[in-house]
């Protein structure tokens, strides 16, 4: 039913668009072909999301096969993508994992997809793409809090771009970067330099190792330089490595003397601690 409604809405929109294009001399047959192609695409995508895939017929699944199929079908009935569940079964089979363990992992993934669906909808993603749900479920499975993905899910990124960003967040969390700041950093990168999302992990590692700072400080430093100038990711990384972070390191400038001047004042963004020192 929802597919029909979506199709009707799409065709109405397309008709209006074609009317507008006709005014500009756009050939009508191309528009009709476009409608057909898009319709096929829409239907196939809906199938991906809604219809339950079959569990691989493999004797190693034994008695767990039917329960796995039931899990997959329940997910499909709930409007969740079933492809990731089937892939998880295939992954387990390929690795020779016992059937019970596969079932446990698939159950956990199904729950994760359901929670991801609720989370995405609660944050304004009406019909989240399967890729996004899978990425969110993967993030949660790795122990990250749902809230860490809030900046990405509520951003203007489309579902596919958001899912890539969530995948990167998942990797950053696994590498030990604090999740919530990393989520905010990824949102900023997506806003300033969306094509650079895939390079964030490398950039952060450059900053962390180049400056020899903690994971949390690396996120702060890169985030500060990204926010200050609105520059591209690579420029922000370069600036961070130059030690030109604007976000931290300032003392409160107290003191009426600074000994023999240890720590020069020209390090303007560095320590401003005075020594209040002088021979008495």
């Amino acid at each position, binding site marked *: 039913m929802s597919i029909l409604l979506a199709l009707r809405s799409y065709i109405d929109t397309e008709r209006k668009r074609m009317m507008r294009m006709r005014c500009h001399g756009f050939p009508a047959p191309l528009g009709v072909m476009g409608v057909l192609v898009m319709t096929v695409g829409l239907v196939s995508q809906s199938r991906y999301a809604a219809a339950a895939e079959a569990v691989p017929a493999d004797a190693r699944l034994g008695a767990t096969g039917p329960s796995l199929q039931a899990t997959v079908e329940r997910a499909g009935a709930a409007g969740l993508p079933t492809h990731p569940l089937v*892939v998880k079964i*295939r*992954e387990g*089979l*390929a*690795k*020779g*994992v016992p059937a019970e*363990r596969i079932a446990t992992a698939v159950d*956990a993934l199904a729950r994760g997809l359901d929670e991801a669906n609720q989370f995405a909808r609660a944050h304004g993603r009406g019909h989240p793409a399967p890729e996004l749900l899978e990425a969110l479920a993967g993030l949660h*499975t*790795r122990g990250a809090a749902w809230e860490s993905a809030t900046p990405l899910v509520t951003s203007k990124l489309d579902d596919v771009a958001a899912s890539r960003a969530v995948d990167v967040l998942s990797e950053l969390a696994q590498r030990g970067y*604090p999740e*919530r700041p990393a989520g*905010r950093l990824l949102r900023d990168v997506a806003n300033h330099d969306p094509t650079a999302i895939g390079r964030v992990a490398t*950039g952060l590692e450059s900053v962390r*190792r*180049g*400056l*020899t*700072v*903690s994971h949390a*400080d690396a996120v702060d430093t890169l985030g500060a330089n990204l*926010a*200050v*100038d609105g520059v591209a990711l*690579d420029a922000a990384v*370069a600036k961070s*490595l*130059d*030690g*030109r972070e*604007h*976000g*931290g390191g*300032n*003392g*409160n*400038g*107290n*003191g*009426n003397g600074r*000994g*023999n*001047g*240890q*720590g*020069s*004042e*020209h*390090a*303007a*963004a560095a320590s401003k*601690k005075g*020594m*209040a*020192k*002088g*021979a*008495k």
Partner: protein
Amino acid sequence: MATRPLLWARRLACTATVALLASPASAAPQPSAAVELFGGGGYDSNLFLLVAADPDSPTYRPYAGGFLRVAPAATLALAADSLRVELRAGSDIRQTFGSGTLFIEDAQLTLLRPEIGPIDLRVGVTGGRFDATVDDGLRFTSAGGLLEAAWRLFERWRFTASYRLTGRWFGAPALIGVTRDLAHEAELRAAFIAGPTSQVALSAGYLDLRSTIDQSSTGATGQIDRLWAGLDGLHVAAPRVTLFASLWAGAMRPDGGPADLQIGGAAAAWVTVRESLDAVLRYEGLVDHRSADSSESSGFQRHVVTVGLLWRSSTARPGRPAEAAPPPEAPGVSAGRVRFTLRAPEASIVRVVGSWNDWAASVPAQVMRPTRQPGLWEVVLPLPPGTHRFQYVQDGRAIRPPAAAHYRADDFGAEDAIVEVPGTP
């Protein structure tokens, strides 16, 4: 009196250094260098409070007026994955109008080890020299050490505890009336990182300064205790414009007498003019209200305004971070093709399975072939650009790839190796 704190400081510094040096360094050390140059000028209402605690200090000279300032500095660093050795040296030359030139030279060697548990640790030694042309006696050398521990908490808080020990030896004690002094300074700081563009911090500190006034005759000492607390904040007001402000209040007690009340603050703005050039405007002020019972001179003030340009350059450049060289069996990627190799002398059949085709297990092309090297299996697969997870399956049993740049936990209690194929997915 200062012996016991000194001993404790030495013990702490030794312990911290051992902890630093004992830490593993998994990647090859990367050298880097940076230079900075500040040039500018300003007005200072009480310049020699730069090195004197108050107007009664032997190092104090009256000067109120303009100054020109040049301050170059250079930093050499050797950074491994979890340890950094840094040497920083700089000069600060201030030319007054009527009171000579001040030459300040400093060097600092520090070891930094982040993430010893939740703590970032820094230890260092410092040394320096001060010379004022206005007075032959007003010169000294200094040496000291520092120990700093920083702790991140609740993501947005950073707590720092630091301790600094500095000794000064005066070049002409007969002229200056002091042979040496020793300062212990401790500071606690809690910074709240409100966001990438703002942070505020509360801090408090204590200083204990003891001077040997005349060692040859009386051996008498002078002493200053000072306690302060302050608030500071930093905010990026607009792209390329950063603002900083601080306010602090404290008490200074000379020679165990009545305490002076002090209040001070600073305000600064940095504007990024060009890629490596910042314009800096800074004000720093202090007002000392001396107790009526004090036998010392009356209270004093210092107000400094500095304007200048700060230029920086560094050899550090972004790129793929330095990592340990991949082991010989790590997958090799070339022009979209990945060579997988595994040493498995006892195996009768080995295949590679991965995420690129949804973990399909029965693809003939993924069956590995024995090479000329005994026990070594390999296969070359064309893979699409992107990040792929994989494992080997030897005689039906999954094997964690023994060599890969990264691993990621799978959902079955094991780990997949990661291979990245360059290009746009």
